[in-house]
């Protein structure tokens, strides 16, 4: 089972394929419907550095962060899926969530050499993998703010990589 440490290199991504089970360790970002469009806007306006955010080799986990824990939300919600191309361009290497994505998104992931991985909503198990959390930006969004998590051996399965998708049957 590939064990990955953030930030991720192009080479690490090149070696992954769909159905690979992976474990991610290190710092990862979180975001969902409310904050990802703001993050895209900040990238397009070249404001990421001012916000103290570095997306090179990053993982973005589509989740809220609250006292109830973390767990994937549906990545095919409009505001989340539409953020994937721009955030891949900004350097995000793994978009982590759940649910199928459109062919156009599969193509944009391939173009930027980014991948999409899915993980089950096993919040009680995730509590053991989560070592620390802090709000990284956009605190006004509360549980939907951009958070930075420190995780150890966070489990996922590669669902879309290099133009191939488990959702195409």
């Amino acid at each position, binding site marked *: 089972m590939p064990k990955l440490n953030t930030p991720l290199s192009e080479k690490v991504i090149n070696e992954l394929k769909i159905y690979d089970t992976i474990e991610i360790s290190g710092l990862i970002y979180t975001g969902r419907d409310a904050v990802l469009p703001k993050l895209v806007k900040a990238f397009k306006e070249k404001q990421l550095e001012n916000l103290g955010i570095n997306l090179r080799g990053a993982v973005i986990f589509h989740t*809220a962060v609250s006292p109830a824990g973390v767990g994937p*939300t549906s990545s095919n919600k409009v505001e989340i899926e539409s953020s994937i191309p721009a955030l891949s361009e900004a350097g995000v290497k793994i978009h982590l969530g759940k649910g199928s994505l459109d062919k156009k998104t599969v193509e944009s992931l391939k173009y930027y050499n980014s991948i999409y991985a899915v993980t089950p909503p096993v*919040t*009680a*198990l995730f509590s053991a993998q989560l070592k620390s959390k802090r709000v990284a930006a956009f605190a006004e969004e509360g*549980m939907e703010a951009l958070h930075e998590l420190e995780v150890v051996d966070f489990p996922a399965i590669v669902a879309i990589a290099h133009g191939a998708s488990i*959702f195409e049957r």
Partner: protein
Amino acid sequence: MGLTSREITEKTAEALIRASTVFRPDQYIAYQQALQKENHPQARWVLEKILKNAWAAEEKRYPLCDDTGIPHVFLEIGEQASLPAGFFKDIEAGIAMGLRELPGRPMAVLGDDYERISQSGGLSEDPGALGMAPVQVRTIPGPSIRLTVLMLGGGPEIRGKTLRVFHRHSVETVIDEMVSWAKEGAEKLGCLPCVLFFGIGRTNLEAASLALEAAKDGDFTVQSELEQRITNEVNSAGIGALGLGGETTCLGTFVKVGPQRASGVRIVSLRVGCCFDPRKATVSFD
């Protein structure tokens, strides 16, 4: 001595916490049976994780899922029972108490109508501010009152729908439509295996209420021929746990058929529930 305000509040809170943190025996049985049938290695990985998550949640009294859901209360009131003054207020207080103790995800949206719709007025930090959906009520024989708390997560709400079906005087027409909706919803859900809840009624409101009643009564070890048929047909799609493929797209189906009107139309309501559905627990007041 009659029911006390404190008893109603505390029992309601306890039901909410149990619904959110504990798999029932019939859920364990359904997952163990699914694992026995499943050969797809990644799908097995998901099913095993869901079972381990359930054990961890119960042991730590921790939410099964971070989307702790919107509380729905279903009341069954005995024909010989009488409700004390303030009964519904005490239930509301119990829901808020349970959400704070769990803790529930603080996802109540603040502001006026426009701000709540656009989520532009911020969120409450109080998990108890979430509030429950309008209470559903049925009558039962005897002197008891049964209260069921169901916690409904948000992903399934994107995939469900309530709509008319022109039945053409054939049950097959309606079943085909139900299976088609379920497959369409499962394809996008993510948190698979799904659990399907159908209500078939005369109005949109009645059908949605019947779907919730199906969830309240649902037991994975008791499946009618109709329910098993729908489950089997959805499983034939091969979407599988977490969308990875395999045998287990749908863990079970629960259908409640209500009274019908003389018309060429049936109103069908569907919730494409997630892998933890139905998160529910029942308490009795005798």
